[in-house]
C-alpha cells in the first residue's frame, strides 16, 4: 500500500518497481478482462436494453423502473433480509456454542468436529431435495416423528408463514459447520494464560466465556457474520430447490425473482435486477465490514 523503502532508507515516491516482467501479467490479465471485466461492463449495458437474444433495443432506465414496480420485488427484498438476518444470527449463535463445545475436552472430539462439518461438504441441491422429502407435510419423516409424540406439524414448505423460515433453518444446518470451524480456529488461538489468570481470580465458567472467549473471538465473529450475510443475501440454490419461491411468491428472494425473470425471457430486466443486487449487497456489506473491522481494531 504505502511506499516503504527497502534497505536504502531513501523514500520511494509513488511505486515499487514490479518484480515481474510485463508478459508475466498477460495470462491472468486476459482471463480477468474476458471473464470479469467484459461481462460486468456488458451487464451494465444490457441492463439498459430490452433484449430478446435475437435483437437489442436501448430503453434507458425503463428496466429499473419496471423492476422496482415489480410487486414481487418488495416481498423479495423483505424476504431476502429476513433470510440473511435469520441465517446469519443463528450461525453466529450456534457456531459459537458449538465452537466452545468442540474445543473442550470431550470424548471423540475429532470425530464430532468432522460430523458438524459434514453437511458443508454435501451438495446444496442434494440437501434441498432431501429436506423437501423429509419436510413433506403428510408423508415426511419430520411430521411423522412429530405426530408420534402427538404434535401436528405445519406444512413446513407449503404454509406461506413457514416456508421461508423452514428453508432458512435448513440453510443453518448446512452452513453452521463452517461457522463452527471458524470459531474453533478463533477460540484455539486464544492464549491459555488468560484462562489461567482468570482461574486464579476465581472467575466462573460464564465469566470466562463472557469476558475472555467472546471478546477475543471477535475476528472469528466478524468473519462469520460477513460470510453468512453475503451468503444469505445472495441465497438462491436452496430456496429454488425446496420451494421455487413458493407457495406463490411467499418465499421469493431477490435472486429467485431475478431468475424467474430470466427464465421468462426478460433478459434485460433480469440483468437490471442483477445490477440492483450487486449494489444492494455492496451497500450493506462494505459499510458493515468497515464498521466491524474498525470495532475489532479498537477492542
Amino acid at each position, binding site marked *: 500500500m504505502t511506499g516503504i523503502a527497502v534497505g536504502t532508507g531513501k523514500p520511494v515516491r509513488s511505486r515499487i518497481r514490479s518484480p515481474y516482467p510485463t508478459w508475466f501479467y498477460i495470462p491472468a490479465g486476459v482471463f480477468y478482462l474476458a471473464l470479469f471485466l*467484459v461481462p460486468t461492463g456488458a451487464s451494465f449495458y444490457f441492463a439498459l436494453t430490452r433484449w*430478446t*437474444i*435475437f435483437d437489442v433495443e436501448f430503453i434507458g432506465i425503463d428496466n429499473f423502473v*419496471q423492476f422496482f414496480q415489480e410487486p414481487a420485488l418488495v416481498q423479495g427484498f423483505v424476504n431476502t433480509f429476513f433470510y440473511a438476518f435469520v441465517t446469519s444470527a443463528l450461525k453466529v449463535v450456534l457456531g459459537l456454542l458449538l465452537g466452545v463445545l468442540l474445543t473442550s475436552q470431550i470424548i471423540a472430539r475429532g470425530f464430532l468436529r468432522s460430523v458438524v462439518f459434514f453437511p458443508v461438504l454435501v451438495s446444496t441441491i442434494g440437501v434441498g431435495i432431501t429436506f423437501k422429502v423429509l419436510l413433506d407435510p403428510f408423508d415426511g419423516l419430520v411430521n411423522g416423528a412429530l405426530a408420534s409424540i402427538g404434535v401436528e406439524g405445519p406444512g413446513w414448505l407449503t404454509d406461506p408463514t413457514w416456508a421461508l423460515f423452514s428453508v432458512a433453518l435448513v440453510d443453518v444446518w448446512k452452513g453452521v459447520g463452517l461457522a463452527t470451524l471458524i470459531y474453533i480456529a478463533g477460540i484455539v488461538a486464544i492464549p491459555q494464560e488468560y484462562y489461567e489468570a482468570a482461574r486464579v481470580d476465581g472467575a466462573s465458567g460464564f465469566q470466562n466465556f463472557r469476558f475472555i472467549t467472546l471478546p477475543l473471538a471477535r475476528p472469528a465473529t466478524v468473519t462469520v457474520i460477513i460470510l453468512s450475510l453475503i451468503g444469505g443475501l445472495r441465497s438462491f440454490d436452496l430456496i429454488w430447490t425446496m420451494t421455487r419461491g413458493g407457495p406463490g411468491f411467499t418465499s421469493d428472494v431477490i435472486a429467485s425473482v431475478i431468475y424467474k425473470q430470466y427464465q*421468462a425471457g426478460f433478459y434485460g430486466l433480469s440483468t437490471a435486477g442483477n445490477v440492483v443486487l450487486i449494489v444492494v449487497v455492496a451497500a450493506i456489506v462494505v459499510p458493515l465490514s468497515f464498521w466491524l473491522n474498525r470495532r475489532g481494531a479498537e477492542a
Partner: protein
Amino acid sequence: MRSQRSTRLAIAAGAVAVAFATTGCSTGSGDADDGSVELSIYIDSTESSVAIFDGIIAAYKEVEPDVTITTETHPAGGEGDNLVKTRLATGEMNDLFFYNSGSLFQALNPDQTLVDLSDQDWTGSLLDDFVTTVSTDTGLYGAPVGASFAGAVTYSKTVYADLGLEIPTTWDEFMANNETIKAAGIDPIAQTYGDTWTSQLFVLGDFYNVLADDPDWAQKYTDNEAKFAEEPGLAGFEHQQEAFDAGYFNEDFASATYDDGVRMIVEGTAAHYPMLTGNVASAIGANYPDAADTVGVFPLPSDDAANNGLTVWMPNGLYIPKGTEGATLEAAKDLLEWIASPDGCDAIGASSTLGGPYVVDGCELPDDVPAIVSDMQPYFDDGKTGLALEFLSPIKGPALEQITVEVGSGIRGAEDGAALYDEDVKKQAQQLGLDGW
C-alpha cells in the same frame, strides 16, 4: 511508464479479440456421399414426448431406411424455452426441433430464425386453427406432432355413478355436485400445487366462456384493451377462489403433484381434476389402462348454461431452423410431410394415447379411444369448441402459475391475483414489442 501501460492494454485487448473470434465455431450434422442422411431433433424430455418420437423414429425407418433420426432432449418448461432460444440465436440448433405452437412459438422470432414451409403441399391438409398457431404474417413454419386436446374438468365416472350425479352445465350446478361429493367423504376437486403449472386450469380452461361472452376478447387483450381484472376474464380466478373457500380441495393440495392428481381421479378418491386431456389420456394409456372407461371429461362450466363448450389446445409443432441446409433440409422437409400425413398420425397414435382429435385432414383416431376422448367428441361435432388464449394472442404472462397457486391457496384474492397477472402480461407484451403497450 505511460507507454508501457498502453502496451499492456493493447496486448490484453488483442488476446480478448482472439478469444471471441475462436468461440464462434459451428456445428453441423453430416450428409454422407452414399445418400444416407442423419437428422437430429431437439425435443423436450417429458415421457410422452420421448415416447412419441421413439414411435416416429421406428416407423420412419421403414419408410426411409437411408435417413437416421436421433433425438436430443432438454428439460420442459422455462428452462427448455431458454435453451431453444439460445440455440436458435447462436445458430447451433439441431436440424429440427419440437416446440409449442401459439404464443411461445411467436416468441421465437420465427421470420428470422425458421425455414418457411408455406410452399409445401401438405400444409393444405392442416386444420385452419392449427395453421394460425404456427404462422406469422409472412410464413408458415411447423408441422403438427400429436393431436389437439382440451383443458377441462376430468372427472371420475365411478363417483358420479355411485352418487347419481349429472354432468353440470353451470358453475352453480358444479358447486352443488361438489357439496354432495364432499358429504359422501370424497375430495370434490383435486389440486396439485406441488407442480405449480397444474394450478392454471381454472383460468386457462375457462377461456371458451370468456369468448362466448365477448368474441373479440383475445384481440382486445392483445391490443391492451381487455383485462383479466374485469369480467368476463375475472371469472376463472373467482371460481378458483370460490372452490378453495368452500374447502373442496384435497387436504394435501399444496404439496401434491400432477401424478398424485391423476392417481386420485383414477382411483376415485377425488371426483374432479381440472387438467389437460392430452396429459391425462397419455398417463392413463401408460399407467392405468383399466381406467380408460372410468375417467371422463366435461368443460369448465360458466354461469350461463347456454355457454358450455371446450377450450381446446393445439398440438406442438416440429420446426426447421434456418441453419439446416442442403440434403439435410430436403430430408427434414420429407420427414415433416410424412408426419403431417395419415401414416405419420398413425405412428404417433400408436406410440402414445392421444387426448383429442388430430389436426390433419384424413387422420382418424382409432375406435378404442379412452372415455376422456370420446366424451369430447360431441362438443367438436356441435362446434362448441374454442381455442385457448395462448393460440389467439401472442401474449402469455410467465407468472400465471404462481398467481393461481396463491389464489387457489387463499394467499391472494381473485381480483388482486387477476390484476397482478395483468401487470405480468404487460411485461411480456413490452418484451414482444407490441403496439399500444
